[in-house]
């Protein structure tokens, strides 16, 4: 890979295209600042650590609104 300037916590766009929420199978919103992938349907926010999405329900933050 020649792209050394990519920010640390950005997710590969090609990967983002194919990901869905593993719980609801619904779409995900990429929150770049919070480094999270948000599933509105399941009310879960999956963390992104060093550019790697952690798509586990057990690791997700619950959205309580």
């Amino acid at each position: 890979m020649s792209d050394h300037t990519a920010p640390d916590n950005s997710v590969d766009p090609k990967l983002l295209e194919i990901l869905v929420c593993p719980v609801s199978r619904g779409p995900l919103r990429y929150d770049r600042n919070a480094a999270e992938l948000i599933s509105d349907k399941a009310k879960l926010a999956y963390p992104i650590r060093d550019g790697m999405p952690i798509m586990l329900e057990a690791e997700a933050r619950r959205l309580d609104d």
Partner: protein
Amino acid sequence: MTNGHLTPKAGQPAQPPAIFDRTLLRQRQDRASKAFADHDFLHRHIAEDVIDRLETIIRTFHRAAFLGPGAHYITEALTPASDVSHVVSGAFSPAMARLGTDGAPRLTADEEALPFADSSLDLIVSMMALQSVNKLPEALARMRAALRPDGLLIAAFPGERSLHELRDSLYRAESEITGGVSPRLSPFTAIKDAGGLMQRAGLALPVADLIRLPVTYRNPMTLLADLRGMGETSVLTGRRKQTLRKDVLVRAMEIYAETWPADGGGVTATFEIVMLTGWAPHASQQKPLKPGSAKASLEDAVKSAEKD
């Protein structure tokens, strides 16, 4: 039944209980990631086999996911002939998923709840992961759904006869000393069931092959250390309730060394890997014709054959 009476079976629970403790598995694999390179011969072997298979298939895989511990070895070994463009490499353990320096994007994902959109991939390779999934048919169905029509699934996992020497030694030692036995090793899938599982998941043209790998270890304890290093020691639920007694382990190691000596010293251990391949259905694939769709009558065919 000697008395001619059938004893009523205990009521079956509506939901089958989880056989594998997946949280424990993730902890084991996180830990194993630290020195994985010292215990990766099986994973490297599978990666080579996968590459061989991909090279013989004449087609481009635009989007691929390689999943499981050691999945990064597949990405590292990719050749131009394997014709794979975009790869995501992942595992259930985040630390395991990060291994490798191939530059492919990384993902932490659970085989029991894969996060891929329907029809989003041309190729999925599952490496050494399906042996500890609680709902194997559902996991395979999820993978199939993630494949585009004519997409390929390759799944490699330990077969039924894997580690039969160890299983047998533990069994014999435990029954000798305690008079009872408890499962110490996970049950593995028999190859005869593998093709059926693929078909049940809606995968076409299923093929199951077996790789048999006899390995020599200095002694049975080095085998156990290697399994621990792979993160592959048993994660059966309930195994923690009955920890293995030291005297049983010592006796099992004796039985192992006596029963399966290797030529030239040490002991033999059998690793058997089931290699499953199947395709997401597509109109272009060969399949039986529908009944009644024949263009020539059977009667005419028989008549003309009789004339000859």
